[in-house]
């Protein structure tokens, strides 16, 4: 309709209107400009929500299978709460040191950002080391993931979380190298913000793990 009125207004013949002029009246052909990376944080947030669903399914599996010991060892025979408390502290410390990295990043201090990232990595690696020690201890006692439904669900849930922390650490070291090569460019700041969300998200998942798996298992 708009195209035909425009035709009469410009007093041209119907064939003179180009196909672009007709279609342009119905939808935008010119893409309006989005600043680079404007939607990255929302996209990454939606990824985290999908990751949240993965963990929800693993929690559901643990909730269903958590009581199936197959005459094997139960949580009270296996878990050591002081070790888990240390582990939780490591992850909590790594969360606040990552927060400090974000604060110095906003001030544009590259060296300090790298420093806090490496402190975060030390806490993250300690968390992983303690978890691997716990896993090897369990497997050494014959309580590996093959022993019972409870242990399968336990290793899947806690192992998936540990795998996320491992990938977070790889990502963290990549960003430390990128920072020394390119500095705090807008792209690198965006990457650091994504990793910040990822890292704090893993701490949120761990709250669920230590409450539902360890603390409730010891009741």
């Amino acid at each position: 309709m708009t195209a035909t009125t425009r035709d009469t207004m410009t007093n041209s013949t119907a064939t003179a209107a180009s196909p672009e002029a007709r279609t342009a009246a119905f939808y935008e052909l010119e893409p309006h400009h989005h600043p680079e990376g404007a939607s990255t944080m929302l996209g990454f947030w939606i990824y985290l929500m999908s990751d949240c669903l993965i963990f929800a399914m693993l929690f559901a599996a643990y909730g269903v299978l958590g009581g199936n010991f197959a005459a094997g060892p139960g949580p009270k025979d296996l878990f050591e709460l002081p070790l888990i408390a240390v582990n939780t502290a490591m992850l909590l410390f790594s969360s606040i040191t990552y927060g400090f990295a974000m604060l110095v990043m906003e001030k544009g201090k590259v060296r300090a950002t790298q420093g806090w990232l490496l402190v975060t990595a030390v806490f993250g690696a300690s968390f992983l080391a303690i978890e691997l020690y716990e896993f090897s201890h369990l497997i050494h006692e014959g309580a590996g993931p093959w022993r019972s439904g409870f242990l399968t669900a336990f290793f899947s849930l806690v192992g998936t979380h540990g795998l996320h922390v491992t990938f977070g650490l790889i990502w963290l070291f990549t960003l430390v190298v990128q920072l020394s090569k390119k500095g705090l460019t807008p792209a690198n700041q965006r990457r650091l913000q994504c990793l910040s969300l990822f890292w704090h998200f893993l701490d949120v998942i761990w709250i669920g793990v230590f409450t539902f798996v360890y603390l409730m298992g010891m009741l």
Partner: protein
Amino acid sequence: MSDHSNPHAEDHHDDHGAGHGTMRDYVIGFLLSVILTAIPFWLVMTDAIADKATTAIVIMAFAIVQIVVHMIYFLHMNTKSNNGWTVMALIFTIIIVVIALSGSLWVMHHLNTNMMPMPHDMGQLP
């Protein structure tokens, strides 16, 4: 909108969706998390509450509060970021998680209780 051509834009305040925390936010969040983690561990390790069901409900309540603390002080959630789309995604995820978790536990519980009682040793069957 700040100029992106400057690589060291220090006053880089355009909203990327994630809020920017302050030192105060992180310290408050950290202290609250320490308290909210220490109390459930203490409750379970010392058997402070005799009734196990009560302890379970209390430590679950602490976990939920701590998750909210992390969301606000560490993940800087607010209803305004990305025109509210982050909150919409979060609410949608919470609904799916609640349906999946409660549904799985409910269905499997009923499946277990309504199953015919079975002897543990199948070899003893005639």
